[in-house]
């Protein structure tokens, strides 16, 4: 049982593709735009267009498709659940009846929409995190949040928190793996038992995990203070983000078709 392998949050696959070289801000805005689009569109043709666009982008990123499928795994149950609910609960022209279960034509459509919607959502966000380094992502977020500083949103602190959180996800997953192994060696069987027993078995994992997380947070705070980190002070960046011709090109190529879809409907 390895936790590390089954969770792909915050994973970044380095490569030299066109998408990797884009400014993180470009990608963040585009993904936000794409997600708005997903909820805007209400018919099959539009979804197919978005799907084609998505596949093109995935192809452009040179990241193996298996990584995108892995992103679906954690919410597989959610997808199946909503699809099944949509399929059977939507009322309309009767298509098929299995005893008390009735499938309507509208149900089939609704289920397909919800399926495509969820899959596209996951793919879009995976594409962003897989092709953008966590640092780039948080820098982009900080930049885009800057205007909101006027109304008291601490942009740089939020981005610092995100950077730290993303940085420690792999570390904590690795530690969880280790603890699972260590407690297995002390006779805990994580693969057996009822729900209550299984929850109980989490205690020997969670307590040491929290203890070391707090200790690590403490160490990190001291290390940051030793390097003169202060909340609220303006910080500079080693690598300033820069918009290039590539980014403008991408904006045009991306938003012209997307906006024309919107206009079309």
């Amino acid at each position, binding site marked *: 049982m390895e936790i590390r*392998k089954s969770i792909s949050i915050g994973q970044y696959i380095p490569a030299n593709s066109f998408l990797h070289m884009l400014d993180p801000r470009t990608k963040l805005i585009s993904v936000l735009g794409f997600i708005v689009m997903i909820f805007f569109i209400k018919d099959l043709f539009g979804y197919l267009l978005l799907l084609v666009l998505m596949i093109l982008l995935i192809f452009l990123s040179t990241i193996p498709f298996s990584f995108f499928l892995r992103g679906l795994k954690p919410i597989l149950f959610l997808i199946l659940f909503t699809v099944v609910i949509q399929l059977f609960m939507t009322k309309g022209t009767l298509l098929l009846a299995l005893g008390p279960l009735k499938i309507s034509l509208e149900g089939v459509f609704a289920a397909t929409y919800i399926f495509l919607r969820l899959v596209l959502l996951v793919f879009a966000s995976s594409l962003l995190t897989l092709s953008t380094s966590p640092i780039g992502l948080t820098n982009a977020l900080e930049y885009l949040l800057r205007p909101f500083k006027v109304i008291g949103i601490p942009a740089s602190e939020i981005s610092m928190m995100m950077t730290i959180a993303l940085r420690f996800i792999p570390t904590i997953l690795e530690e969880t793996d280790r603890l699972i192994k260590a407690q297995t060696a002390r006779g805990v069987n994580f693969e057996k038992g009822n729900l209550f027993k299984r929850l109980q078995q989490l205690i020997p994992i969670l307590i040491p995990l929290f203890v070391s997380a707090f200790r690590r947070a403490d160490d990190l705070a001291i290390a940051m203070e030793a390097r003169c980190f202060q909340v609220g002070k303006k910080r500079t960046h080693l690598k300033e983000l820069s918009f290039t011709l590539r980014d403008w090109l991408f904006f045009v190529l991306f938003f012209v078709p997307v906006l024309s879809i919107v206009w079309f409907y």
Partner: protein
Amino acid sequence: MSIIINKLSYTYDPGLSFEKKALDDVSITIHEGQIAGIIGHTGSGKSTLIQHMNGLIKVNAKGKVLVDQEDLFDLRKDVHTVCQKVGMVFQYPEMQLFEETVEKDVGFGPKNLGLDEHSVKERVVEALDMVDLDYDKIHQRQPFFLSGGEKRRVAIAGILAMKPKYLILDEPTAGLDPYTREQLLDEILKINKEKGITIIMVSHDMDEVSRLTDVLYVMQKGRIALSGATREVFAQYDKIRDLGLMVPEITEVLLGISRCKPDLDYTLFDLDLAVKEILKNIHYHGN
């Protein structure tokens, strides 16, 4: 009776661009009663190898791990039998402490085995004694408030309480102060000599390896590069250096002297014996 590892290979993340071959056709046999050492650079496959020995990593199709002539693949079906055969102390084992008292934490393993309260307590007392901790003084204390050395000992006692026949230690002295380190090494030796528990020890420290172990395996890039009786392995000092490792300090000194006193036996690791050997040689020529 022994742990036999036969033609074991293991690859992390197979098929992906960052796949890593951690073990490549490794075959070793560890006999009962021995203290076996495994040394090698970081990433040479030591940890992967030892995790195979108690079934924490599944043995893949080609290889085989036999513990006392039983296939680990069959033993794995019952987690408890494996735990009682092969105990595993991870690096920085104090990380796994979680109970409110030392007694509860050391007793966690035996309790998982389904033992009654009385025998759990018996085992806790015995295990704490094996690491030189006094049950009466320590059993009600909170593990998180112990000193580093005590925490390490309590964690090791937690494994010893499972009464394993074989005990695997992954860098047991890492991060300890020199005094505590010496004590812990003595305790490990005692566990082997008095309780007859076979010890398999991974280490970076050549001095402690040379002092404790009977046999030594040197790993490099997932393979066993050198193996044999510890004395014989360190006698091949040039090969060890070629692998980018060091020989024990005592061997360095003896090797240096043997350059002008060729009769000197440089395969001694005990300080007293080495001193005698040096004196013998110097006197011999002096007379």
